[in-house]
Structure formats: structure tokens, C-alpha cells
């Protein structure tokens, strides 16, 4: 295993990371579920199924970790597939755009929420042309008011009170 730092190959492999996440989430649910009362098999408590399912997920996670380690020992990083790269720009921009909608819909109304959502979403792509995106924001605000509120009758507040 002369090629590259071997430990990094293990730590960044998709099997290892997935396994860790599964194991952690499974354990958290099993541990949380145990507090609700396990009961007995014939009278399942509210914690029975969570402990069972969470435990199973933790086992699956451990199996993934074990498989990654075995492959890593056997073949170095040749046998391990790395996790895909996470692109922060679209991730953050689109999450923020949804959050902006959530934040403003009841405070400032649909029109402001739509415009905020579209403009912040525009930050997510390198090919955004702002004159266009502003236009899209206005068009979508009008469209939403006409289609969702006027036509479909959704109870959405249009403006800040």
C-alpha cells in the first residue's frame, strides 16, 4: 500500500461513511426508543419497534463499516469507492431559499416569500443572469397568486398585515 495515505482512503470511502451514519442514527433511535418502555413481545411497549428497527439499522451500519475495513486491508484503496463530492454552493443556496420561504410566508405574505425564494435560489447556480432571475421572481409571484390563491383557492396570505 504505497499509493497515497491509506487511512484517508478508508475514511473517505462511501461504504465507511454510510456505515457510520447508519450506525449512529440506528443507535440514537434504539437508545431513545428504549426510554419509552420496551414492554414484552406479547405486549409491545412504545419502545419495542424503535429498539428493534434502530438496532437493525445499527447492525447494517456496522456491516458496511466492516466490509469497508476488510476491503481496505485486502486491497488498499483500490477496492473502495470514494464518496461523491458535495457541492456547497447549490446545497446552501437552495436550502436557504426554502428556509427563506418558510420564514417569510406567514410574516410577509406570499408575494414577498416567492420573490425571496427565487432570488436566493438564483445564488445556487453560476449561470444565473440577474436581470432574468428578477423577472422570473416577479412572474412566479404573480403566477402563484393567480394559480394557487385565485384558482386553486389555497388559504395563503398575500401581503404582510
Amino acid at each position: 500500500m504505497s499509493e497515497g495515505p491509506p487511512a484517508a482512503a478508508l475514511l473517505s470511502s462511501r461504504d465507511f461513511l454510510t456505515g457510520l451514519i447508519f450506525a449512529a442514527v440506528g443507535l440514537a433511535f434504539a437508545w431513545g426508543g428504549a426510554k419509552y418502555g420496551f414492554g414484552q413481545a406479547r405486549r409491545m411497549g412504545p419502545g419495542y419497534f424503535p429498539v428493534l428497527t434502530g438496532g437493525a439499522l445499527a447492525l447494517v451500519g456496522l456491516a458496511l463499516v466492516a466490509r469497508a475495513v476488510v476491503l481496505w486491508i485486502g486491497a488498499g484503496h483500490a477496492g473502495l469507492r470514494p464518496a461523491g463530492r458535495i457541492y456547497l454552493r447549490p446545497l446552501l443556496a437552495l436550502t436557504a431559499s426554502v428556509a427563506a420561504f418558510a420564514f417569510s410566508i406567514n410574516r410577509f405574505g406570499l408575494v414577498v416569500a416567492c420573490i425571496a425564494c427565487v432570488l436566493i435560489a438564483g445564488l445556487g447556480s453560476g449561470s444565473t443572469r440577474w436581470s432574468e432571475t428578477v423577472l422570473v421572481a416577479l412572474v412566479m409571484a404573480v403566477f402563484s397568486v393567480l394559480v394557487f390563491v385565485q384558482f386553486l383557492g389555497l388559504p395563503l396570505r398575500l401581503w404582510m398585515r
Partner: protein
Amino acid sequence: MELIDNLTLGFGVALTWSNLLYCLIGVVFGTFVGVLPGLGAVTAISMLLPFTFGLDPIGALIMLSGILYGALYGGSTASILLNMPGTPDSAVVALDGYPMAKAGRAGVALFMTAIASFVGGCIALFIVVNSAPHIVRIALSFGAPEYFSMMLLGLIAASAAAGDDLLRSLGMVLLGLLIGLIGMDIVSGQARFTFGIPILSEGIGFIIVAMAFFGLTEVIRNLEPTGTARSITPSLNWRGFLPRRDEARRSIGAMLRGTGVGSFLGALPGAGPTIASFIAYMVETRVARDPSRFGRGAIEGVVAPEAANNAAAQTGYVPTLTLGIPGDAVGALILGTLIMHGIAPGPRVISQHPDLFWGLLASMLVANLLLWVNIPFIGLWVRMLSIPYRLLYPAVMIFLCIGVFSVANSPFHVFLLAGFGVVGYVLSKLDCPASPLLLGLILGPMMEENLRRALLISRGDPAVFVTSPISAAFLALAVMIVVGSVVSRMLRRRQAKA
């Protein structure tokens, strides 16, 4: 004649003016979304789902099938004309459809696609009409242990079908089951995993998760800078719609084989239209006398997957509605809609809501026919493809936000959408398939309920799952699937090494 009665009832429901209108709206919107790059049938349905809640259950389901058919057809259109399949559903059609379009025969490909869809749908409807009552008769004898084992089998089969790695898919199913536990426990009234947030005691709706995993995550992925700039040059040389005589002759056999493959696979839990179309294509390449024609515009390669696709969508409604076991993400969404409208899926759906069951099946054929209305507008749909993505995705974001908000008029749900979007994106980077999670989420509460009842009846003895022959058979099948996929993975690895 029971059969005729059922069909009369079904078409009576499907052909009322209001349901025809819902179906038409669904088909048009579905085609619109399906044609757009990067948005497939599942995305289309989850995006438009909240806007059907105002309708009665039948209307909502009919509109959803309209959206499904429209989106499948729209996806095929984009595949054939641009070699740009938005989703795996339509990837197969591109293999031979695009070469046909390049040769100036796009009209033929699109026309035959519509015919194949219709033929596949018709034959599958006939099969469903004849087989559903038998399945129901068997299912009515099921008790809690049988149901639990069947759901387990369905989840495992769906995991095996969803990705190349069973462990990953199983993990996603379990994750879905756990997310489904969030909220109030029906039996004890205990609030579970709600962190003291009152609105969480109602649970996390499948719509939010579906919108996050199939909507938001997809948009984020499409915005990654690695996405190659799409050059959009639809090659639209119309030289008529009609196939050559030898093509027509070969299409007939291909349609029938595709329908057979699709009808069979669609009825199995865990398999769906996507797998059906892949396998139908494989069958065609094996059956053909000259396999080298495939990939260069062989009509069988277009017709068979389309027929299989539609047949599987049709027969897939049987396990979804009568057993409550959806085959794929679309089935899961339909099932979730049913539950939201207060209809418990199960063998009694046909006897208690015959208008819904038969009306839905009939409306699928109607949706197929309405697709033909689209054909003259293909030019228009194609022009929409030239809308750049940078203008499109902000509009999609609005649909996602308003859709989720309108489920309960709660901004909290929209924040949840953002959170699950991040989770979905990270999981997609780890190659974890999303549809097993959705299946687990929807089946979770029912599985817990049936496990609880089975163990209550057996006084806590888990042997009840193997002493019932039906339950034991389901479990044995599940074990076989697991062993089979492990063995095939090991064989592949050995081959790769050698």
C-alpha cells in the same frame, strides 16, 4: 358477468366529466413536467401531489395517474428527441429511440410509443380484471403474521431491486421505518422522537420526504457545476408518423412480449415500471434474429420497453391497492395518498370502494388515450425543452415550497423540507437509493401494527411467523432474495478480479 359489471362501473366513474377533466389536467401537467430536463415521473407526482388534496379520493387518484402517464410519456419524448432521459424510467427508450430520431424518424418513434403504451395498458387491464379478485380472495385469509411477513418481503424485494448494493438499500428501508415512527404512538399515546415539538406528534408526512428526496435533492444535483452544458438541438424532421410495413410486423410481437414481461414484473412487490422496461429491452435483444440492429434504431427497442412500462404501471396497482405493498416510489406515493384520504389499503378496498378501484384502472386507459391528444403538440413540448435550466429551477422551488406549505399551512413543514433536502443530498452522494426509504416510511406504521398484533395473538411467541405456511413462504422468499443478491455480488467481484 361480474367482469363486465366491474368494467362498466369503472368506465362509468372514469368517464364522468369532472374525472375526465382531472385526468386531462393530470396528463397535460405530467407531460409538461416530464418533458422538462431532470424532472421525472416521481418528481412530477410529488411536486403536484399537494394540489390534489382538495379533490375527492377518486378524483385525486385519477389525476395522479394522469400525471404519471403524462410524465412517463413526456420523459420518453425527451429521450427520443434529445437523447436526454430525465430519469431511469425513460433511459431505455433513448437507446433506440434517439437513433430513430437522428434518422429523421422521430414521428414514427413517438407514434409507436403511444400505440405501445395503449396496447400494454389494455392487455394489462384485462389481466388485472381477471386476477385481482383471486388475489383478494387469498389476501382476505391473511392475518397479522402473514401481513407482517409480506411487508417484510416487499421491503426486501424493493431493496434488492433499488440499487446494486443490498446493505445500502436495507439501511435506507430501516431509516425510512424509523422516520415513520416519529410522532404519536397510536396504541399508547406516547409521543416518540418529537423533541417536545407539538406539530411533530402528527408525524412527518411522506409528502415532505418525497418532495425533499425527489424534488429538492434532484434540483441541487442538477445545479452541480459538473453538469455538462446541454446542447439542445432537437432533430425534428417529420416524415410522417406511420412505420414501415416490416416495422409494424415486428412491433406486434415486441409489444406482446413487452406487455407480458411488464404485467408479470409489475405485479411483484418490489419491481416496478423501470425494471420492467429494462428487462423487456433485454428480452428483445435476446429474441431478435439480428441483435446488432439494437442501438441503431430498432423499432422493437422502442416499442417493447414502452409496452412493458405501461403494463407494469397498470398491474402494479394490484399489490399497491389490494395488499398495501407498493412496488416502487410511485406506488408508495399512490398508497400514501390513499391513506391520507382515510382509505385503508388492503383486500377490502375492492369490495368497499369498488368505484375507486375499477374507476382508477379504467381511468388509466383513458389517460393513455388522452396522451394521443398530446401528439399534435409535440412541437410545442419540444420548444419548452429549450427553456434554460437557470430559469426553470427557481420556478420548481416555488412549487416545492407552496406544495409543502399547503399540506398543513405550516411554515415548520417547509423548514423540514429544507432539512430533509440536506439529508437527501448527502445520502445521494453516498449512493443510497431514495425509494426504499420512502417505502419504509409509508409501510412503517402498518408493520409495527401487524407485528404487535401477531405477537399479541401468539402470546409473544415469534414462532408464529414460521408456523403459518403462507407467512413462512414469504419469509423463505425474502431469505432467498437476500442470499441470491449476496451470492451474485460475490460472483461479480470474483469475475472483476479474474
